[in-house]
């Protein structure tokens, strides 16, 4: 895995580790809420009762959080982990808010 060795030099400084933990926990949480919200709004728009849509999206949030957590721990490049998690969190939350505010939403 020469690529990995080249990207982090095989070392993890304390700052790297703290940054990775922040991506894997609070960053991950924001992303998970974004994904869940987007799913809940989309399902409600598609005609599912909103209590049911919220329940399903909420339950799925935990496996999503776990998978993103494991990926964030292993991701080769810290920067890329932050771009995917941080960018994903902003995009999904914004999309969910936009969908929820747009007319025609079952809400």
């Amino acid at each position, binding site marked *: 895995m020469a690529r990995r060795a080249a990207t982090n030099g095989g070392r993890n400084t304390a700052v790297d580790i703290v940054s990775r933990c922040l991506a894997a926990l609070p960053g991950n949480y924001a992303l998970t809420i974004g994904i869940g919200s987007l799913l809940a709004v989309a399902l409600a728009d598609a005609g599912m009762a909103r*209590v049911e849509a919220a*329940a399903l999206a909420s*339950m799925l*949030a935990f496996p999503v959080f776990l998978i993103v957590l494991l990926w964030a721990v292993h991701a080769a490049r810290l920067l890329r982990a932050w771009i995917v998690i941080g960018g994903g969190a902003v995009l999904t939350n914004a999309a969910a808010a936009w969908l929820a505010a747009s007319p025609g939403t*079952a809400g």
Partner: protein
Amino acid sequence: MSETFPASMHWLHTWTGVIIGALLFAIFWMGTLSVFDREIDRWMMPATRLAPAATVSLDAMAKTMTQTGAAEWGMQLPTDRTPIVSGYTVTDGTYAFLNLDPATGKPLHDPATRGATDFFFPFHYSLLIDQWQIGKWLIGLAAIAMMALCVSGVVIHRRIFADFFTLRIGRKTSRTTLDLHNVAGVLGLPFNFMIALSGLVFFIAVYVPGIQSVVYPAAGSSFTQDAFGGFDRDAAGEARALGSLDAMAREASRRWGGDTARIVRVTHSGDAAAYVSFDRSLARRVSMTSDAVIFDGPTGRLLHEHRTGPMMTTQRFISGMHFAQFRHWPLRWLYFASGLLGCVLIATGSLFWLQSRTKRHMNEGAVGMPLVRAITIGATTGMIAATLAYLIANRLLPADAAALGQSRAQLEIWAFFIVWIASFAHAALLPRRAWAVQCWAIAAGALTAVASNAVTTGDHPLHAALRGQWGVAGMDLVMLAGGSVAAIAAMRLWQRKPRLVAGDPAAPALPAA
């Protein structure tokens, strides 16, 4: 993080375990005790060791409850595990609790203890830290950690199938510890993953409220009300007597295909707009259903019936797998055994880390080692000793005990925390024999608890079993069995040559490796 996925998972497994192990043990231990919370309640509240009542008249109970004058009250009805009616009243937002004898409807004496259902159980899900729900969030973090530990543990286990049956108990301690950790982890994997996930799923409204609020933006409606049921109307301000609760209960039972009610709640008691809610029994199904029927108080007319859709029904089913409120004794014992196995898994994980690092860290002069050791000892054997101290205090404190402005129930909790803190201090100050001494303390504590129950109530295990108090007898027998295991462990540990441990002032300087 690392070059290969197993290496990353190894890093995750090690550090998650070290940081969260003590917390995880506390949660698992308290959860394991909560599997038999009602039985422990009977042990701790001798006045409630009643024979099951043949018939229970809700109207007779209602008479006692309305005499309290509270506008809002409720009762948990007897089950095969709880022979009493647990009532509560709410006056100006303050809860008061009273137990009733289901045969007569008369109040029982205040048990002056929080028992298991009001101490071990809330410890399990909130760590007794209610401020900003910090306790629940810490537990949520621990549950996620448990799932991450399960996955990473499977990834890094090199010979999961070849070593499936391998448990080498021998002279090499770290080998025994690792085998035990692997076996407990593999056998407990389905249970541990399920119990962590279902605990999170139960608290969706706490952990991921953001997902629900996006489809519930407006005030006046809420996810929790739609999901878990809820009915509300204002008081009329006009006095009117309550109709027959027994008639309402019969109607509710008819709607539920014969299931009985487990909880009855009365709101605006004595008012013309009073209403009565019945929650469906959990005895016959895995699901912790939130089915409820609400009647008009004075007339008994049906006002509202709560039923859940497929997704919330799924959520209730998963919650039910965690709470195990069903009537199924083999499963209850398997839950208890699985919980203990989880405790073994966590303890051996921490122990293996300590055993494999001690020497290296001592040579490097690392300071973290004695700290982790003391935390591990206090969190495992210390936690068990503290639990026994709580039980012993419950049996030995006089009925009217009070000290320093603390009630009897509070003094029991003080006993728990004093012993727990002392166990950490002991492990930090006298690390060489700490495991052995605390195992002796557990063995002695278990024996004392059983003896004090026999002396103060006359219900020694044989007597309790003969008069049908299986919960009390079982509790004593489990403590005797656990105490014996602790005594054997203590003897083995004592015979072993005390090993040098880091941070021990008595340890001579090691020659440089």
